[in-house]
């Protein structure tokens, strides 16, 4: 007898949640954290030039701990570090 696997059953429509803050999201991040991610990624080559070279993880850790970094950028740096 064929049984229906759960994924074939009708599902309630689920709202995607931001993996950082739990707000409504389009993919895995909300608009704020998606924008912050863009900013963090865009600043990396500039940091690399400024210091000669810098590892991605070291960069993220520095961004996360810097008092001038904005709240969303800090949160996304932590998320990208896997914290």
């Amino acid at each position: 007898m064929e049984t229906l696997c759960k994924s074939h059953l009708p599902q309630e429509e689920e709202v995607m949640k931001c993996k950082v803050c739990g707000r409504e999201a389009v993919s895995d991040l909300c608009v704020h954290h998606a924008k912050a991610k863009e900013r963090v990624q865009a600043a990396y080559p500039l940091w690399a030039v400024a210091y000669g070279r810098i590892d991605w993880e070291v960069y993220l850790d520095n961004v996360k701990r810097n008092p001038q970094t904005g709240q969303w950028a800090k949160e996304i740096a932590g998320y990208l570090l896997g914290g």
Partner: protein
Amino acid sequence: MSLADRRYTLVICEKPDAARKMSEALAGGSAKSSSVNGTTVFSFSRKGEEFVVCSAQGHVYGVSDPAKERAVYPVFDVEWYPSNLVGEDSAGAAKRILAVKKLATSASRFVNACDFDVEGETIGYNLLRYACGGKEGTALRAKFSTLTEHDLLSAFDDMKPQTGQGLARAGRARHAIDFVWGVNLSRALSQSVLSSGHRYRTMSIGRVQGPTLGFLVLREREIREFVPLPYWKVQGVFERDGKKFTAGYSKEKVGVKALAEKVKEECIGKEAVARSVRRTAVRVEPPVPFNIGDLQKEAYRAFGFTPSRTLQVAERLYLGALISYPRTGSQRLPPSINYRGILQGLRELTEYSSQAAELLMSEAKPAQGVKEDPAHPAIHPTGEKPRRRLDFAEVSIFDLVVRRFLAAFGPPARRELVEITMNAGEHEFRLVGGRTVLPGWMKYYGRYVGYKDSELPVVFEGDSFRVGEVSVEEKFEQKPLRYNQSSLLEKMEREGIGTKATRADIIATLVERGYVSGGSMEVTDLGLSVVEILAKYAPTIISTELTRDIEERLEGVESETRGEAELLRETVRSIASQLMELYANEETVGREIDSALMSAVAKSFVLGRCPICKTGELRIVRSKTTKKRFVGCSNYPSGCRASAPLPQKGTVKATHKACEHCSWPEVYVVGAGRPWKLCVNPTCPRKKKS
């Protein structure tokens, strides 16, 4: 003979203090006070004519919808009602209206003596129309800018029938538009929240509030997304004959660490030569007289007063006849205010005596600004002595107004700017400074002068030096600054939204509604959500363009170049289309606001990072068994047992700061007494010490 048996001129003032001052001035000290319907009125004879002076208490009529059902929208039919019936104020409004009605029955002539601006005109117009039985068209107008005897006597000798009444019509239209705007959007948002299952919560967004919150949100996003870039600051110490001075590298920010280090290597211990010493004489003109916006900004800079506090204090000083009418946009002082008379008055006040006397010996012509206001001159002292003891805030604002007035009459100041350029090999260093050579007006402005002198070494071109130390300091770009109450006020002025009379209150309302936190002007999650939702479903509501357009059209009504009916119709059309969008998305809107509200509540329980497990958050938790509150870690389920007791009385608020002795969070406890700060850790080393 009672008031009811006589025929008299009924004078309507805006506030009780103004009525008293006016009566004292017009009666020459012989005014009698009596009580009508529980309010004080003054009566006297002047030039053989009987006068009775009564007053409103600000607005005693307000706009509302006849149905007054908070769940119903749209609402486009509005009426004027006594304020006590629309929940704006107070039993005070009802008794004042009844008093005016009673006094109007025996009056043979009516005088509107409210403040001469949009709000004052509206207050007077409404009382004359509704309480006096349609006398708004025949009443005389007494116009004045200070409550001094001289100004009040002139105003009453020169009373004229009102024509056009542009100010009152614009004021009434503004009230109607703001009501329709506010009531519909607030109801739409509140109903959305209710439909999401959250309990009823009043959500408001006003016509000027929306775009203002929009500015704050835009800045808040920039701050929260900000990633700082590193740079290096290079400074050299230059030595000669045992004397040293420090100069900065010509490129203030070196963007690459290796380049900064290279400069250091190539300069240290080398010889440097002063390539140029440039001295520039700068003439600094005296500041222009204050309008209300300038006064609010300067009071914030000098004393940290919020714009609304400055306005309140300035109004008290005006009612005490110490300064002129503060709600003015003018930066100009016309000769008709009698410059010399005011300076003579100030000469009698010890603090300003010598400076006023000095200015009296000159031509006494003030600096004038560009901005004009047809109704009132710039804010200035009246020259009268305070008749009561002023409190700290009043003394501060009064001193600022007087010193600005004196400074406006002062001669230009002269400053010398010096720029020394040093060359060390191919690298250039610079030292810049300035000093005041001739104080001019700065002498009168005293401690409010913003210029600082810097000590500069005596250096001549060609002098040689040895470069001692060279420092390379790592720095980071600063995140954008949040608006403060003063810079936000300036932004509103620049964008042309709100009026000089309302801007301060609008900022205060944003704080009251929980969209912005008071001191730092940080936008809350609720404020962010409200703007995002409106941007998505009703973008016009937060657009600067529509608000500015309405302000410009209202100015047209004020100057009697356009009518208000068309403006009202168009505003209704704009709001209606935006409301339909909100209504169609009520459920989504409600869910988004609800989520922001819940997040705000959850945040208020978080005190800070757990110092034990380093990853959890310490929160205020209530015990299910004892119902007592305490501090617990969010990682309790995974084993962290960090906890601490809390005081059971009063409100506990997070300071978002860790104790410098033990790293546990500190909290404020706000109770019936004075608020106090407490480290939540019961074994904090500081507590043991004490």
